[in-house]
């Protein structure tokens, strides 16, 4: 009667889908003020969890609560499972105080993924704002591991200030490669910032990709994605070649709690990554 969803690590009829598995913090890395990366390893053994770039897990902090957090590590090395988190509220603040050896609960991976396969042969625009670079990093790793299969690859990243540039060392490293275009901009900066200032969508003018042959993957605040979509479409990237990752309140990840609805879609399982042509009209409806 029922079938396991693709990519599911457990059989939903046997395992209770609401019951987390236990994971231990292997390492915690402070990235920026209030932003940290957790590397997690399973406590109870079992099959290695595999994931696709763009998917997320539900992370549980004992007694406090559970939140959706994207995988931010390399899908080719899913052990440990890496998550980059910005502390903004009750659960994420509690997660911030974890230390190596502590335990968390984890359910997942859930959701749709970036079109790493569909984009092969095409130019690739990867655009992120703020913490939105975290869910795109697994895609960048996967593309770099198979670099020859893609055309031009552009990474456009925007942060509020120079101090809030996530994965700065890696961005530098990627920028030094000849087979990548990497542009970083900030909203505002002091005099010692020599880079670009302005909204991330302006970086699209930098070109380096051929719009009709481009696949674009966007993750960031919805307002940023809205402008990015407009700019991309102006340049001739079709809506069926644009992918966005959306954020909604999530309590289950399974399509049961109803909180994540966005029109007819459950963002938890029909998303978080959506091909834009499927949601174009509703993307413009306020408070849908």
């Amino acid at each position, binding site marked *: *009667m*029922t*079938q*396991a*969803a693709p990519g*599911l690590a457990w059989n*939903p*009829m046997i395992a*209770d*889908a*609401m*019951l*987390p598995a*236990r994971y*231990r913090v292997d390492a915690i890395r402070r990235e920026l003020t209030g932003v940290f990366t957790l590397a997690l390893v399973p*406590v109870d053994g079992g099959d290695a969890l595999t994931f696709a770039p763009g998917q997320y897990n539900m992370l*549980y902090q*004992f*007694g*406090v*609560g*559970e939140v959706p957090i994207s995988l931010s590590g390399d899908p080719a090395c899913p052990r440990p499972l890496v998550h980059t988190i910005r502390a*903004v*509220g009750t659960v994420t603040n509690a997660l911030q105080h974890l230390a190596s050896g*502590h*335990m968390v*609960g984890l359910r997942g991976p859930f959701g749709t993924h970036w079109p790493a396969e569909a984009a092969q042969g095409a130019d690739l625009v990867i655009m992120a704002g703020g913490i939105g670079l975290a869910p795109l990093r697994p895609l960048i790793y996967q593309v770099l591991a198979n670099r020859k299969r893609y055309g031009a690859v552009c990474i456009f990243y925007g942060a509020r200030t120079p101090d809030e540039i996530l994965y700065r060392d890696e961005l530098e490293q990627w920028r030094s490669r000849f087979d990548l275009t990497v542009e970083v901009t900030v909203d505002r900066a002091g005099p010692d910032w020599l880079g670009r200032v302005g909204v991330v969508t302006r970086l699209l003018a930098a070109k380096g990709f051929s719009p009709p042959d481009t696949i674009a993957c966007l993750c960031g605040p919805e307002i940023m994605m809205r402008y990015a979509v407009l700019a991309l479409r102006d340049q001739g990237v079709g*809506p069926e070649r644009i992918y966005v990752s959306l*954020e*909604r*309140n999530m*309590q*289950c990840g*399974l*399509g*049961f*709690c*109803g*909180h994540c*609805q966005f*029109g*007819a879609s*459950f963002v938890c*399982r029909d998303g978080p990554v959506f091909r834009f*042509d*499927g*949601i*174009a*009209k*509703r993307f413009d*409806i*306020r*408070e*849908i």
Partner: protein
Amino acid sequence: MPDTLLISTEALQGLLDALIAKGYQPVGPRLERGAIVYETLSAASDLPRGYLDEQGGGHYRLSKADPSSPETAGIFRYAVGPQSWKGFLFPSRQSLWRARRTETGFAFEPETDDAPAYAFLGARPCELAAMRIQDRVFQEGPYVDRGYAERRARAFVVAVNCTRAGGTCFCASMGTGPRAEDGFDLCLTELLDADDHAFLVEIGSASGRALMELVRHRTATPEEIERGRRAITDAAEQMGRRMPPDAAAILASNPEHPRWDQVAQRCLSCANCTLVCPTCFCSRVEDTTSLDGVEAARHRQWDSCFTLDFSYIHGGPVRRETAARYRHWITHKLSTWHAQFGTSGCTGCGRCITWCPVGIDITEEVAAIQATERAEPLGDE
């Protein structure tokens, strides 16, 4: 055994005894605090007798039938009340699991479900439809809610066809009633007139048939079957409301209609409609710890898309305006539900109309939008 039997009113006790003998816990309509509610039945005499309901927008009243009329003996002559069977299959608050601190961290303890095997006595056709709709949500998608699936599989359903429509019913236009076609083990039709009171019993499953071996019955005559059919047709003809057949398309095409702001001026955002609705499935989880921090628990409880917290994300709720929340509710029920689950999310039971404190009427809202439609459909999706 033929497919349609006749039992006397007294045999209802025999039916309950047989259910109990088979290990079921019978649940059915009882009179509590002025309303019909579903609770454990210990005897057939617990069933309300001679009560008629009066329902309208924001209005519900039970009254005793005139002692000189045959209605005074009637048992199922009222329509659905504020509750539905949802509360038994998908409890309003449920423990999901517990966790306990250990030396190396913590350990999870899965919750065991100790719900009995229920026998639902008196499930109306619209309520069978609601169960089938929730089946799609909880057990026919990519994930299965095991607790729901187990409680559902164990339950025995004695349906009751409607022979008198409630004031807010519109099941006939939703294709869910007033006659039950399937989805029951047994289905009763009350035959009631001045000199006769009995029940037709249709057999819907092998366990229904086995149960009837234990209950005094005889074969129903064609005349009796015809009387039952007519009584159900009467109920269909009494319904004063209907849902426009293309409600799904009307709502999909009008997310920006001015009616949303108008209805929002009346809507109190109280969530009553979602809590009485037999198909609404939304829930929220709640994580707690014991005072000493050693034990943690997770519960799941009913939630409603009418609350501000429902759509909360860092930065604020997605649906701040009442207009957006009402639009989400009705559009989900009647339109996006089709895309999600291949069926409408509305059975036409009328509860959301009756229990809305200001009497907002789901059929009237769709009709109002239809009457003044102007937008073009969401063509690209």
